């Protein structure tokens, strides 16, 4: 039942976008339902149990005896999990009620090729979906992204896990421990609210399948499936993760939702797309700041998983740190403290009087508190706009009326044969 909440936005997103987005939406939905769909833990033809694989060196291990294991795992990767016996049928799904009694559509169809091309394509269903032994899968546990995986980290040889990231997230503003809002914990995002196990860039992958492209790899490495996966991984990590427009849409899913923000006593972000940054992003400019470039700038060592409230001292958007954030990566290299503080980079629906901590020009925090009256600022901007609205109406109606009257007078004169 719980998964349905994560699933809904994908449907909504599909409706808003064009054909390309629709296809991508299907791909994402498919990949997501792969992760959600319960799977058989033990099935005929399953080559190795997770424990066996854990004990043996992983795919990225460079030891000599790795080759047979790679082959064994590649066979597993060909879908010997047995789940696709049922889950390959595109009609597999049902309507059901979620926790809030809304009817939601659940799709259990998984496109195997799509799954194999995704980031988690090397994993089998049962690696993430534990305890799926019965049909129907009434014993399925919720997928835990923080569990220890049977794959090994090639740098240490230890078993791989996302648990450090999960811990970071828990302590962040988005986590159960770090969130200021005690109630409504169900609003807090889970891994899959942001991460959708997308397929690797298909065009690039197609290129990598060509023999010429990977010939140099084959001089030392044998397994072409491994080579492709390795290249895909490196290529993905070196390229931009998400276009800015997608980041904005992702954050807006919650932060532009007035009901949800009211539950957590947070400002609703409404004006970002009207700012210069927002406009540039709409044009496809990736050089300007999206949400994450200010709220969790990688360039300054922050991570989206450790995002904190702007009221915390270590937040990049805390008034004491804002100047440095604006000046990062030569964005606004000459930014002064006054430029960075004193008003928000994007307006909110709720206009409140804030107490912000002001730093000196060197960027180190001082204890001087400056009261920024956001309500007054909003009023002043409103008055300017109102002044121009009235002036524009007066000028257009006045001038236009005068010209129309003039036309009428000329017409009248012509009829009289005056001129």
């Amino acid at each position: 039942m719980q998964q349905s909440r994560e699933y809904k936005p994908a449907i909504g997103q599909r409706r808003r976008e064009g054909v390309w987005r629709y296809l991508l939406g299907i791909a994402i939905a498919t990949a997501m339902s792969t992760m959600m769909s319960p799977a058989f833990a033990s099935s005929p033809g399953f080559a190795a149990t997770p424990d066996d694989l854990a004990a043996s060196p992983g795919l990225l291990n460079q030891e000599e005896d790795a080759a047979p294991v790679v082959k064994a795992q590649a066979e597993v990767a060909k879908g010997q999990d047995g789940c696709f016996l049922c889950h390959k049928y595109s009609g597999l799904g049902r309507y059901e009620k979620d926790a809030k009694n809304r009817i939601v559509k659940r799709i259990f169809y998984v496109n195997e090729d799509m799954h194999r091309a995704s980031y988690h394509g090397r994993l089998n269903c049962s690696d993430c979906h534990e305890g799926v032994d019965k049909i129907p899968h009434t014993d399925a546990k919720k997928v835990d992204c923080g569990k220890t995986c049977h794959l090994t980290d090639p740098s240490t040889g230890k078993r791989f896990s996302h648990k450090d990231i999960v811990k970071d997230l828990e302590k962040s503003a988005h986590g159960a421990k770090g969130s200021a809002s005690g109630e409504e914990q169900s609003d807090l995002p889970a891994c899959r609210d942001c991460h959708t196990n997308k397929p690797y860039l298909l065009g690039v992958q197609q290129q990598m399948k060509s023999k010429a492209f990977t010939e140099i790899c084959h001089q030392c490495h044998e397994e072409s499936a491994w080579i492709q996966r390795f290249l895909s991984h490196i290529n993905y990590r070196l390229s931009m993760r998400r276009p800015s427009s997608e980041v904005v849409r992702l954050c807006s899913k919650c932060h532009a939702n007035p009901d949800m923000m009211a539950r957590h006593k947070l400002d609703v972000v409404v004006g970002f797309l009207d700012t210069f940054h927002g406009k540039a992003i709409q044009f496809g400019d990736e050089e300007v700041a999206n949400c994450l470039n200010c709220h969790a700038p990688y360039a300054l060592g922050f991570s989206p998983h450790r995002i904190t409230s702007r009221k915390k001292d270590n937040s990049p958007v805390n008034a004491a740190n804002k100047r440095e954030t604006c000046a990062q990566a030569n964005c606004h290299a000459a930014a002064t403290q006054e430029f960075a503080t004193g008003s928000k980079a994007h307006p909110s629906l709720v206009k409140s009087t804030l107490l912000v901590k002001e730093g000196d020009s060197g960027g180190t925090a001082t204890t001087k508190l400056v009261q920024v009256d956001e309500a007054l600022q909003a009023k002043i901007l409103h008055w300017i706009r109102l002044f121009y609205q009235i002036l524009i109406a007066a000028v257009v109606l006045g001038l236009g009326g005068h010209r129309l009257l003039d036309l009428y007078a000329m017409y009248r004169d012509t009829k009289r044969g005056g001129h």
Partner: protein
Amino acid sequence: MSGHGNNERVFARLTKSERIQHVILFTSTTLLIITGFMLMGEDWVVRMLGPTGKSIFYWRGIVHRIAAVAVSVVCFYHLFYVLFKTTGKSWIRDMLPRLKDGVDAYQNVMYMMGLRKERPKLDRFTYLEKLEYFSVYFGMFIVISTGTMMWTQSYWPKFYLDVADALHVGEATLAALAIIVGHIFAVHYNPHVYPMNRAFIDGNISETLMKEEHSLWYERLIAEEVSKPANTPEGGHGNA
């Protein structure tokens, strides 16, 4: 050009310098309006640009700045022109608002509504032309100062930039609409001059149009011509 014969007498309306100033002003203003209002576009329009949007956005900013410099230079040159050049001084002397403009406006409106028999006799610059001219001063003061602020944004508090942005957008919208309903009508759609008043190209105004729209100026020039027939300083130059 209705009723304006080709062999009609013409009078000098704009000097060469004024015409060059005007060309620079209207080309750069057009570019500024187009590139500026691209930021106000609906997102679905912008999204239709697809992958080319990025370079369009880049060039939008460059063109806006180049046109802004051009328009600023021409504005400051115009200030110099009206303060120190002979033709410029005569221009600003005739342009300064006076009590007669208010009377003219009242009488003209009364005439147009059919409550008066005669149009008022208008001088070299009519009350609407004066209004347009000084609106440009006001508008240019706002957009050049706020535009400079936004160009040097790092040195200003964020809130001042918000104010500058609101003023810049408001003034630009006002100017664009005022140009359409005011100036474009007066020099293009006005039946006296349709399809356009050619004064901005050759600097001349026909005798017919003089009589229709600037009859007081016309009478003054003719009177001057009668008193000293040769080398009239700002009069017409014979039959074209």
